[in-house]
Structure formats: C-alpha cells, structure tokens
C-alpha cells in the first residue's frame, strides 16, 4: 500500500496522523523560538477521534517583504554579526502594526493530501481581508492569485470549525508531491513520515512561512 501512495503523491489518513505527530515534534524540538504546532483531535457528536484532527500554529508572523523591512529598522546587533542566525528568531520583534496569522493543516479525504487553512489578524484582532493578505504574500503567489481568482486561494469553510478560512486548493498537491517524494533517497516507509515536512517546504513558500532547515535532518 505504501508504494502506491508515494507513486500517487498522496497519503492515507493514518499516515497523515503519523506524519503530523512526527512533524510537530521535530518542529517543536528544532524551533524553540517559534510557537509550537499543536494537534487538535476532531470532536464530533460528543466523540473525540483517536486519529482524526488537524495541526494548529497560532499567532505567528509570516516572512514577508513588508516584515523584513520592518526588521531591518529594528537594528539587531546580533544578526549583523552572525549571518547564520535563523531569521525566524527575529520574528518576535514586534512592530506597531504587526499582523499575526493562524495556520491550520487538515487532511482532505477526497484528495488524500494535507490542506492549509489560514487567517490573518490585525493587532486589534480584526480579521485581515484578502486585499490586506495579498500585500503580505510572496509576490509569486500574488501573481497566481491575479490569474486564477477562484481556483488557487479562496475562502472556504474550515472542515472542523464553522468559520471561513483562506485555503490553498489541494487538487494539484498529489502531482507535485509525487515529484518531490520520488526525488528523495528515502525508502518508502521513511518518506511517508517525512511527508508533512516535505509538503510544508513547498506550501510554506506560498504564504511566507519559514521552515527551519534543521527540521529536515534526521532526529
């Protein structure tokens, strides 16, 4: 079965759960200056699921051109000296109009891939509109958004919370994950555990989430 999965670029719900737990542990170990990813089990009709749920990363700043220029003005001496400093550690420096984001990763039973859901907030807690989010997205994402208004990134209902979230359409995910996984030297079993870090290395770039390189070294 595992072979079939890497051939198609998708993964089963059970593998998603395993990869999510592995990924969140690795992230929390390697990225202590960032908030942690937390697994939220799905609760349905009073029954809490053992293995269905979603990953949550809340109140983070994204790596955007706008934020980078703010950070330069904040004159951090240690980063001038140490070029190897992971830029993610600078994210805690607040500017007046800091925009924070919540990122959720849920599993799509249709496409059998992870799906990203996200929301942005102003410092007063108001939700960011699509136009405001566009100002912060990496430029290549904005280009795609201009060309495909309805099929790349849209507002949809979160699969577990009854609220609107922005999401990246997952129908192409299987295709590029297939390429990504086939280019690794991992055996099938190892590659499925690494599915989420691999997936996030691509998706993260779409929204400006910096993923630390240590995440990819063996634990």
């Amino acid at each position, binding site marked *: 079965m595992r072979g079939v999965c890497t051939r198609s670029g998708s993964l089963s719900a059970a593998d998603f759960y395993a990869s999510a737990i592995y990924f969140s542990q690795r992230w929390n170990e390697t990225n202590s200056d960032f908030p942690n990813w937390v697994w939220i089990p799905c609760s349905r009709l009073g*029954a809490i699921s053992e293995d269905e749920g979603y990953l949550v990363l809340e109140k983070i700043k994204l790596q955007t051109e706008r934020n980078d220029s703010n950070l330069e003005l904040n004159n951090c001496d240690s980063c001038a000296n140490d070029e190897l400093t992971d830029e993610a550690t600078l994210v805690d420096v607040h500017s007046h109009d800091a925009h924070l984001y919540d990122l959720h990763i849920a599993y799509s039973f249709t496409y059998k891939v992870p799906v990203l859901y996200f929301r942005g907030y102003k410092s007063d807690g108001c939700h960011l509109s699509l136009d405001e989010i566009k100002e912060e997205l990496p430029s290549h994402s904005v280009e795609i958004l201009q060309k495909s208004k309805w099929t790349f990134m849209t507002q949809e209902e979160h699969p577990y919370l009854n609220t*609107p979230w922005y999401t990246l359409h997952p129908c192409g995910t299987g295709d590029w994950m297939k390429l990504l996984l086939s280019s690794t030297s991992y055996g099938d079993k190892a590659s499925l555990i690494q599915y989420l870090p691999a997936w996030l290395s691509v998706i993260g770039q779409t929204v400006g989430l910096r993923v630390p390189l240590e995440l990819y070294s063996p634990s």
Partner: protein
Amino acid sequence: MEEEATKYIWEGAIPLQIKLHESEITSFPPPPPLMILGLRIGYLPLLVPPLKAHFSSTLPPGTDNVWFDYKGLPLKWYIPTGVLFDLLCAEPERPWNLTVHFRGSPGDVLTPCEGEESVKWSYINSLKEAAYVINGNCKNVMNMSQADQYDLWQSLLKGNMEGYLKISSRLKLGPFGEDSLPSEASETVASSRPSRIPVRLYVRSVGEEIVDIEDAPIIDSWDKISYINRPFEIYKEEGGYVSLKQALKSLLPETFNTNSSQEESSTNVKDPNAPDFEDDNAKLRLVRVQGIEPDMDIPFFWLANCLRNPEFYLHICVFISKQPKLI
C-alpha cells in the same frame, strides 16, 4: 428508472416565503414577503434577482451584501437549498419561512458570497472534487471548454435538465458501481483501487427523549451539526451489495462503534427485561435524501445513482440519537 429519478430531482422545489429583515424596511406599509420556488438542486443566492426586484424600493441606501437566515440561523449559501430544508426542518414546513438580508453579513461566521460568481465557482469546485473522487483526477472537468462550462452553469441556473445532461454526460462521471470496473490493461494498478462515491453527510444529534423527530428543537448554531465531506469507499473484492445502513456506519465509525468492544465484561449476560438497545453507540433516527426517507436496506450504489445532485455528490441528512451507555 434512473432517468425518472433524475427528472424527479431536477423538478424538485421547495415553496419559500421570504421576508425582508425588519431592520431593512424603510417604507410603510412594509412590503409583503415574496413567495417563490427554490429548486432543490439550486442555491439560495441564485434567488437574488427576483428578491431584489421585489424589495428594492424599500431597501435603505448602501451596497448589497445578501444573506439568508432561518429562525436566526445564518444559512450556508453553498449548501443546496433542498439539503438545507431537509436538514433544518425536522418537520417539513410549507412554505418554508426564510428571512433575507441585503445589508451587513455575519462575516465571521459565514463565508462571504459575492453573488452568482461565488456560487458558480463553489459549484465547479464541487464538481472537480467529485470527479477526483470518482476518477482519481479532475482532468475532465479542468479540460472543459469555456463554452461548455458556461452552458453547464446556465443549464443549472435555469433548471434545464436536458441541456445539463448533454454536457455532463461527456464528463463520463457515472454511473457509480458496475461501470467503473477497470479495463483489462490497467487491472494490475486499478484493481487495488477502490470504488469511490462522493458523499456529503450532514448529521444532527437529537435527544433520546424526543420521541417524534418532528419535535426536534430548532438548530441555533452550525456547531450542532456535523458536516462530513468524505467519499464512500469499497473494494471490489468485498462483493455483495452495500446497504444504505452499512454505508452510513462506515462513514461514521466513531458514532457507531459498538458498545460491546468497550465494556466486554458487563455485556456478556443479557437481562431479558432490559430495553433492547442496538449494539451501537448511536441510533439512526431519520435519514433524508432529496426529501425522501429511504429504506435502510436499499442498495447504496443504486441510491447514489438515482438521488445524487447534478455535481455528482450524494447529500445525506442524518438524524441520530446517542444511546445511553450500558453500565
């Protein structure tokens, strides 16, 4: 038989009585509500043109931002009208009384609707998703010409079944079941692939003490409804036919986990005087598809072929009661 069923579905409509929210009435006497038929397979925002025509003279100044509510519950516009009715009206209300708003919008709760375009794209995305469930890819939908996409949508808007079927049949998305057997050449890969049917389940929990489903309390929050968008899967080797009841149990595994696996020691001896509980955690009280309450033993594939919506999804409303746990 299936052609008749398709016709039945396309002709199904809910009589609606839609009033304007009182905060938006600026004229006296207030305008009467609009009586209008809502196609079961249609969507509420598509009724905006006649609603606007009816209410425009009394609306306060401002830009339109249309949304609907039923007894205070904002309605999710991307759910087909017939499904909303079957789910929210435990006892079918004729006409169904709704309130329309042209101003404001519970933006934190309801995904915003920018009119017909929003509905169209939500629809196309559902069709794409259904194609992916059925075929393992959405190529046939993605490759539809602009003209075909336009005609398909217009046919749905106007309730034009023939026009719609002319285009949708070219997508080769049905029927579910026997016709999806893999060809000889691809058997080695495809034989490990299950048959999948696009299903959307809407589950309401009703108290055990409610004897008549029609007395179920009004829903005041979408948190009281579980929405499950998950394909039904079955491997060919499993053989036989799957009943509706079996299909529902496989789609809601936690809901129907047997009690006996949790309390092995206490359930071995059955007291003949004890009430007759089913083995499961929950009991199916009512199942509605296209306004019909199907027999629970009906073959699931056949039901899906007859009663699915035009975008190839089978929408099922389920009312359940939790069983008290055996002590």
